[in-house]
């Protein structure tokens, strides 16, 4: 098992209030899996991603990565884990604007103390793999959104980590670029990379082979062991959403017919 999170609790302490974010979250991921974590904003999915990415620590619970406990490690050890085992892809790309695509991709290799010549070779290879072999000298400003995200993916993969963590990777992209990114993820996953992706879009989540829902800090497996309470909650939620949709439709129709009178929905 490549990832093993158990009974993770996390709350944010804002002044006197403790705002719970994650509640008893357990997540097991096998090597080579492709998992999407879905949830609306505020559901705690980003916090979960940060914990998986060794950027944040839970209040309680255990987390093993490659069979190794990570929560007991110090910051430098976590930095090394991020460097060697994890690749990050962000919604807003997070490329360094002044550096070329090649330099951006080579950045993790700098921290891994790879010699300069090898850095350039490996960064070029990684860019070729994402189909940007002809854009190595371009700065992010000269690239389209989809190309920027592909540079970011090349950067995430250049150190050959086992796990790719993507936080809304298509959030800032049009549907065509999104498709390309998803194809790239598919390809990486087929090569054996474990992909964990956060998204709020069902269309994107559909690319994953396994989907987990997170809602109000509680995680549940779709198509699987979902408990009755959560199911009921989900049902209520779905009904509410359906009602809302009907209401919107009706208002839209009324607007079209020129009637602007306000009416309570039945």
């Amino acid at each position, binding site marked *: 098992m490549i990832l093993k999170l158990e009974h993770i609790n996390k709350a944010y302490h804002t002044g006197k209030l403790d705002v719970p974010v994650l509640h008893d979250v357990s997540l097991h991921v096998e090597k080579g899996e492709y998992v999407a974590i879905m949830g609306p904003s505020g559901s705690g999915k980003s916090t979960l991603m*940060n914990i998986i*990415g060794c*950027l*944040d620590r839970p209040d309680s619970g255990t987390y093993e990565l490659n069979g190794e406990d990570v929560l007991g490690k110090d*910051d*430098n050890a976590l*930095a*090394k*884990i*991020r*460097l*060697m085992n*994890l690749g*990050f892809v*962000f919604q*807003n790309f*997070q490329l*360094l604007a*002044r*550096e070329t695509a090649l330099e951006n991709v080579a*950045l*993790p290799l*700098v*921290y*891994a103390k790879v010699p*300069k010549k090898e850095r350039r070779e490996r960064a070029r290879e990684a860019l070729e793999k994402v189909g940007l072999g002809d854009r190595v000298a371009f700065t992010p400003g000269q690239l389209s959104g989809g190309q920027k995200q592909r540079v970011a993916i090349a*950067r*995430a993969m250049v*150190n050959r980590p086992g796990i790719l963590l993507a936080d809304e990777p298509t959030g800032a992209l049009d549907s065509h670029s999104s498709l390309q990114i998803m194809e790239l993820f598919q390809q990486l996953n087929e090569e054996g990379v474990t992909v964990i992706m956060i998204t709020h879009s069902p269309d994107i989540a559909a690319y994953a082979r396994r989907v987990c829902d997170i809602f109000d800090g509680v995680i549940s497996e779709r198509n699987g062991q979902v408990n009755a309470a959560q199911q009921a909650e989900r049902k209520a939620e779905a009904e509410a959403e359906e009602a809302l949709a009907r209401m919107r439709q009706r208002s839209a129709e009324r607007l079209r017919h020129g009637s602007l009178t306000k009416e309570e929905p039945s």
Partner: protein
Amino acid sequence: MLENIRLAFRGIASHKMRSFLTMLGIIIGIASIMSIVSTIKGTNDALRDKLVGSGNNTVKVSLSSGGQELSIYDASSVPQNVQPIADETRQKIADLKTVKQVTLYNKRFVTDSSVFYGDNSVSQFNMYGVDDVYFDTVGYRLKTGRAFLESDYTLFRKVMILDQVASQKLFPDTDPLGKTVEFMGQPFTVIGVMYEPDDYEPDIQTVEDYYNNQDNSNGLFFIPKADWPIVFNYDEPENVIVKATSTDDMTTAGGAAAKILNQTITSTSDDTPKYQAEDLLGIVKSQQKLTAAANMQLIWIAGISLLVGAIGVMNIMLVSVTERTAEIGLKKAIGARQSAILGQFLTEAAVLTTMGGLIGVGVGVLLSYLINRFSGIPVAISIPWSAGAVLISMLIGVISGLLPAQKAARMDPINALRRE
């Protein structure tokens, strides 16, 4: 490290105006310190050249009493309890590591006799009885004629060398070479006329300086030391001039020679004169200290502008860290250790101030030349100070970059990434 320097240059280049303004404080501070130091060094070098002479490095070790050089002007003023210097004592001095050359000489300020040639005569002058290396050691050159030869000493030839003043007085119209003059009832043949190639202006600061200069203003007369007892009837105590191996060794060489000479004086009575080395270098140093002290306050003021510059650098670095929050967050997320981030920002600050320092040294050198050009104050550029100034600038960068760099290194990557 190289990668950090590359990043630093790229960062500086992307904010040219801001970087320049930040550097300006350092530039002004370093430039003013450099020009002040150049002025101090220029004045000090000039002082040293004037007093010590350049490249001669000779130290007079003469019999003194009560801190004053003993003046022998007649038989009664010859100290009775000091013997002429023995050959082995001379050898001991010559063997000193700091000593390059030694010469012994007798000297009398002649008041009771004159040198005559025909109707012309000179009185009240310094007569020197010198050995065959004296001219070479002291650096006197012959204008015409020949120097003293070894045979002059072995054969007790009565020969004489004059300076140009004496020559002018005794032989206003004729060539002095080969002429015979009379001194103390003895005939002396003039064999040469000497001059001092280092034509320095006499530096008159004390009454003693004044009299010494007065003594020499009537001309200098040199005869072989071997003739001294013939002329004056007695062996007289001798004085010594040592040539030090380097200017910095002058004080040591003179002191060591005086010590060796004083060991030969056996008499312990209070009126016995002692050998004392003139300490020109010491005088120069104390004068140099005065100039330096007067200018030290200026350096402190310039130092304050450097401090202000350092604060400016810290301020801009703090702004830069805040601006680049997202970059720092990303770097930490992809695995940069705290030390890597710290190093990046420290390097950037150090590169910034080192550039400022280099420009400052350049401006300082330019300023020094302008000062020299328009006010005539001597300036000299000190290479160690220039190198030191650049190094100090680098240090300022590291120190003022420390706080901002630490702020960057300790940044929480989650908050940092969320900012954008």
